[in-house]
């Protein structure tokens, strides 16, 4: 049962073949079984999950009308506030903090009857591409436990990939949903900026952050997308428009006559051969399904990484200032006569990890007087050029595509000493964030050289998220029929008994 899709589980629950409590227990068992190896979760609250499940079962028994995901278990990235549940954003500075409020995403999940199993591991404050920057140790890729699952939402991706949960929530600031989805062989979507409320999403880079869904299929992902999206008056950047019909698009999955644009700048040098090969194969499949493949040029994408690594650190240097040991979280250095200032200094030293400090310092520099125009100011202008490149490209194509990650899952420790090499992991995903548009990664097969999953990235204009699902579903159907099953079924068993 746990290897089923969320859509199948939903049908089984509706038919009474299984209860939500049973389904939740199966997943809790699976977590107990494999999570010691995968370490996807920072916090599992079995009792609370079973209570939520029982409540859904009771509602179902009383004939209450339930949404399609009612009673389905889910793994929540630890970056989202959940009332009364430890929420750390992967940082020691928030160890033990229990929010007195629910993020809007959590409120929507609860309202939909989704059963939250626990909080998943992540790079500290979502800064990283491997989950190695977590203050609580790395998560391991279920495909190969010596490798990273990508990041920063590595815990959520690994949980779904290891069948610990059929669905998960992640957040994507520079690729933090799509890249781990690619590296773990599942589907992940970064919705349009403003489509999912950021209220209660612990901010890394406010103008780039966006929460989004993970699933093992395009349809499952769409179902979760529909639950969490929608206007929220508590987020001033939330878009006040109807949620795109993503579930319907995922069910239709037709690409006949669609123009699919291949971005010239997001392939070639630096892209692993197996990644490129799977990408090209997917393009051929889309062409065979009746899509027209065109090449598009986005020259300013070359500067996207540089712009991102100025904008995100700048915003984070300000967003993370609130972690100061005064109102919540860690407090250290409180010896006799210590001042508030010295306690702040020492707590931030002790509570933040290396990468977080590196980005805070970089951001502080980029915003400081005398450097603002050269760094932050220029980066914001590059952002404008990237938006213009996309605009032009979307006049030539309905969706744009690229490999999600230039490489497959890398070894734990392989890049952790080289920040620049790590930053390059996001080279293909970052332009979407800078432009505020939407993107999906779905499995395109295994790279021949290492037998690890490759992600295929689809990008669509703002609030055209349904296009991702339409194209994704078509490609998925063709690939699944070619492979004789979902790619995830090829993942190693992890020694799990069930």
């Amino acid at each position, binding site marked *: 049962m746990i290897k089923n899709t969320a859509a199948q589980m939903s049908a089984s629950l509706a038919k009474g073949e299984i209860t939500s409590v049973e389904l939740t227990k199966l997943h809790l068992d699976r977590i107990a079984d494999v999570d010691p190896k995968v370490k996807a979760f920072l916090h599992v609250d079995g009792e609370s999950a079973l209570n939520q499940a029982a409540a859904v079962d009771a509602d179902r028994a009383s004939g209450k009308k339930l949404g399609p995901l009612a009673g389905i278990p889910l793994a929540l990235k630890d970056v989202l506030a959940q009332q009364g549940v430890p929420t750390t954003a992967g940082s020691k500075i928030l160890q033990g903090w*229990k929010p*007195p*409020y629910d993020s809007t995403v959590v409120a929507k999940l609860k309202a939909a009857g989704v059963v939250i199993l626990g909080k998943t591991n992540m790079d500290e404050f979502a800064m990283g591409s491997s989950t190695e920057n977590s203050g609580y140790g790395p998560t391991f890729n279920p495909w190969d436990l010596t490798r990273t699952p990508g990041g920063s939402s590595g815990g959520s991706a690994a949980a779904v990939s290891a069948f610990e949960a059929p669905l998960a929530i992640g957040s994507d600031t520079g690729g933090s949903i799509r890249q781990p989805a690619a590296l773990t062989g599942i589907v992940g979507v970064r919705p349009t*900026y*403003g489509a999912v409320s950021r209220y209660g999403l612990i901010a890394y880079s406010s*103008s780039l952050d966006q929460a989004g869904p993970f699933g093992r299929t395009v349809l499952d992902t769409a179902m979760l997308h529909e639950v969490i999206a929608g206007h929220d*008056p508590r987020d*001033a*950047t939330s*878009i006040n428009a109807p949620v795109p019909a993503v579930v319907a698009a995922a069910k239709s999955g037709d690409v006949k006559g669609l123009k699919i644009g291949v971005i010239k700048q997001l392939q070639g040098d630096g892209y692993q051969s197996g990644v490129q090969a799977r990408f090209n194969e997917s393009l051929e499949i889309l062409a065979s399904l009746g899509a027209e493949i065109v090449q598009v040029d986005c020259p*300013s994408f070359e*500067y996207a990484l*540089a*712009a991102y690594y*100025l904008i995100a650190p700048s915003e984070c240097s300000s967003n993370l*200032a609130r972690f*100061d*040991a005064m*109102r*919540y*979280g*860690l407090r250290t250095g409180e010896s006799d*006569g*210590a*001042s*508030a*200032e*010295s*306690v*702040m*200094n*020492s707590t*931030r*030293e002790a509570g933040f990890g290396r990468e977080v*400090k*590196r980005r*805070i*310092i*970089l951001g*502080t*520099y*980029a915003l*400081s007087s005398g450097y603002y125009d*050269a*760094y932050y*100011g220029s*980066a*914001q*202008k*590059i*952002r*404008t*050029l990237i938006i213009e490149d996309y605009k032009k490209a979307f006049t030539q194509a309905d969706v744009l595509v690229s490999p999600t990650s230039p490489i497959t899952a890398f070894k734990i420790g392989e890049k952790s000493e080289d*920040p*620049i090499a790590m*930053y390059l992991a996001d080279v293909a995903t970052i332009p979407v964030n*800078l*432009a*505020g548009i939407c993107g999906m990664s779905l499995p395109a097969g295994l790279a021949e050289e290492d037998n690890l999953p490759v992600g295929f990235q689809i990008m669509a204009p*703002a609030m055209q998220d349904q296009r991702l699902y339409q194209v994704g579903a078509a490609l998925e159907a063709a690939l699944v029929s070619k492979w004789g099953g979902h790619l995830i079924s090829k993942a190693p068993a992890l020694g799990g008994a069930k």
Partner: protein
Amino acid sequence: MSSLSRDEVAKLAALARIEMSEAELVNLSSQFGSILDAVARVQELNLEGVKATSHPQPMENIFREDVVQPSLTPDQALSGAPAQEEQRFRVPQILGEAE
């Protein structure tokens, strides 16, 4: 080749309120050369006349009505406080003057 001296890193760390050991200062200073080279690419293009984008979606005038909603209870507000006294957050002595 860009660089950031140990003293410049120290100044930034002070601005960002992060205590740093000598080793950390030196280490960050040595890393910053290549990081700054990477990000300084934003200066390669002629950006004259290009508008800066601070918000990815073109939105304006998002306001809320001036209506009071319930606040947290003081217990909730103080629930995460490292120290509290008389329903207030207790913090070590503050050295600087307020703004």
